[in-house]
């Protein structure tokens, strides 16, 4: 066999690839939080926004003295949007001594982490780990699959639907609704909640279509739009996010579909750009725990600060609540022991980022907070902030008080013996 110099070059390259060393994380006296979300591949755009938000928040808190005199440090772990990899990275974080995990993208991964952390804590008493969920909204996480070690700051998808339908209740122009959702657990949760709640609140409204399409696989939504069009719907409810939202709206605009859109994630990365392109002025509504243009002073300050540093708006007001409450809980517990942090967080009341009071419900570890319905379109003087440099911005359409977002839970919380 004859090997050219190329073969030998490759040999040398292979040798070089091996001695990469594991980096050591920074100073030891910090309160480390493992941020486990996609930082490479398709989901990275979302994960990076989250990471920067958390780093910004840590810096913000550290500037105010941290907690118990210690600084916060965010350590990033790339879960590559893969459940196995998520657990490997969580394990890696735990093995390097980190005991607070935060993650948000994907209920599947959230469920995996929650399950893993719960089992881990059972098997490793005294070395408990706590998991903060800032964006995974599958209701099951605070219902049948609830865990003492899991805390959720985002409103779950049922609560969001509750808020949306409360708002839609009074919109008399809604006659025919079309549901289009991604075919996976979150999409399923959105559609079943929508069907149940609409039936309850607006029995006169007709659901003319109930579509489930495959997750992140559709490149052209034109066929779906043709179907919506044919159904005669005047409003569409969708939980779509990411490209599934952007492409859906784009196809709708192409076909000249004139409906209102009630969405969960219109504000997600790329969403505003797509809406602006379609020209759907204040016809796309989104539900969330906060928007930039509420006119609440402290929030505006924060918004300005984060925009000055990064070229994105604050997409995760809930992350602000999470980090600030963590700081408060540590101060309250006078400890960074996860067990004690968890106990301190249970039932904690807190002034949320956009004003008003929120509460970490002890029964299921679901944060209860005011929710806002907002529409996206041209701005007036009252809306100083635009999105993704489109010139358009969010405008408040309706506020749902925290008390009205409370839903019963099936959670039977089992707490650690203390």
């Amino acid at each position, binding site marked *: 066999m004859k090997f050219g110099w190329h073969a030998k070059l490759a040999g040398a390259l292979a040798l070089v690839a091996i001695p990469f060393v594991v980096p050591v994380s920074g100073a030891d006296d910090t309160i480390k939080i493992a941020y486990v979300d996609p930082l490479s591949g398709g989901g990275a755009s979302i994960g990076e926004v989250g990471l920067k938000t958390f780093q910004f928040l840590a810096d913000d808190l550290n500037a105010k003295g941290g907690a118990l005199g210690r600084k916060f440090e965010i350590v990033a772990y790339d879960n590559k949007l893969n459940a196995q990899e998520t657990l490997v990275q969580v394990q890696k974080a735990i093995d390097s001594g980190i005991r607070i995990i935060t993650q948000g993208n994907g209920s599947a991964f959230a469920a995996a982490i929650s399950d893993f952390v719960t089992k881990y804590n059972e098997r490793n008493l005294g070395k408990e780990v706590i998991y903060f969920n800032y964006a995974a909204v599958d209701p099951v996480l605070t219902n049948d699959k609830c865990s003492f070690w899991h805390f959720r700051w985002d409103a779950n998808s049922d609560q969001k639907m509750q808020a949306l339908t409360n708002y839609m209740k009074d919109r008399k122009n809604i006659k025919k609704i079309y549901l289009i959702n991604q075919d996976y657990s979150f999409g399923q949760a959105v559609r079943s909640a929508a069907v149940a709640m609409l039936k309850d609140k607006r029995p006169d409204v007709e659901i003319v279509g109930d579509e489930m399409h495959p997750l992140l696989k559709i490149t052209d939504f034109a066929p779906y739009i043709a179907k919506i*069009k044919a159904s005669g719907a005047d409003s569409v409810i969708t939980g779509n996010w990411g490209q599934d939202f952007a492409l859906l709206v784009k196809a709708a605009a192409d076909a000249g579909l004139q409906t209102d859109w009630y969405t969960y994630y219109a504000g997600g990365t790329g969403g505003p750009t797509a809406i602006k392109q379609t020209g759907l002025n204040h016809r796309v509504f989104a539900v969330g725990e906060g928007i930039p243009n509420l006119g609440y002073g402290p929030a505006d300050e924060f918004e300005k600060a984060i925009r000055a540093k990064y070229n994105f708006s604050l997409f995760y007001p809930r992350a602000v609540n999470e980090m600030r409450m963590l700081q408060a809980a540590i101060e309250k517990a006078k400890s960074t022991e996860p067990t004690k942090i968890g106990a301190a967080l249970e039932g904690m009341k807190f002034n949320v980022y956009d004003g008003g009071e929120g509460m970490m419900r002890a029964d299921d570890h679901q944060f209860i907070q005011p929710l806002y319905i907002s529409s996206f379109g041209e701005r007036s003087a009252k809306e100083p902030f635009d999105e993704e440099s489109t010139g358009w911005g969010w405008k408040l359409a309706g506020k749902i008080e925290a008390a009205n977002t409370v839903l019963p839970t099936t959670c039977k919380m089992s707490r650690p013996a203390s």
Partner: protein
Amino acid sequence: MLELVLVSTLNGVLYGMLLFLMASGLTLIFSMMGVLNFAHASFYMLGAFFGFQISQLVGFWPGLILAPILAGFIGALIERYGLRNVHRHGHVAELLFTFGLAFVIEEIVQMIWGKLPRDYRIPPSLDFSAFTIFSTNYPAYKMFMLLFAIGIFVALLLVLTRTRVGLIIQASLTHPHMVGMLGHNVPRIFMLVFGLGCALAAVAGVIAGPALVTQSNMAALLGPILFVVVVIGGLGSLSGAFIASLLIGLLQTFAVAVNLSISDIFGVFGIHTNPLPFLSDIWRVTVAQIAPIMPYLLLVLILVFRPTGLMGTRDT
């Protein structure tokens, strides 16, 4: 209902033509070189991003010309300095080379343009609705895409049947070893064909970019479907690729419009209980839900019953 059928047909044909633009390049490359270029969809993506970048600087129309040339040039370079070296290690190595290439191109695109969708706009001159069927607007740009794709198809057909280059290419479709014997510079033809194939994919990217999404995962989304098209059509058959493209375009579009499930079908015969309790989902899933996996189902069926594909003559 008629409206849905008409719009679906138009959309299906459009999607099919888009697929064909890419599949034609892939088929050409496969016919000549025996390489199933896994990175073909990556050149589609490169086309879209080059088109986007050029449209930012000088506008959409120059991009339509320049981006494919650029992508074709890169393709030719990759053939010359990459694929050609791998060639002697056999087809598996070539396939794997393009497999890795797809990986690398995606990463590089992410490095340059980021992971977010880019705002690649339809040129203002085409940003209106061409006509209205019943109440649905049909955008002029989609009409343009359709006509453009058909135009390319016709041009390709003419080149292949009327020119000397075309005859050489056709000769190598059926007798890959003969062309070399006839004294043609086979490596150079390979390089040109590879470049041309990539340029064709890039054309598809430039025109599809504004209509669909221009994002770093667009190649991964479309890539597998592309293989389905060329395999169903019959590896190495242009007309097969054409038929398969339309077939899949229409199949996917129409499947979306159908809300039937197996239980509905059985319901017609008065059967209402699920005979397979363990897999109750199969019972409930509608045709619309499985629309995107239909091509794969079709692929498996075709290969089981007609292993050479619809129009294929060559046994792979």
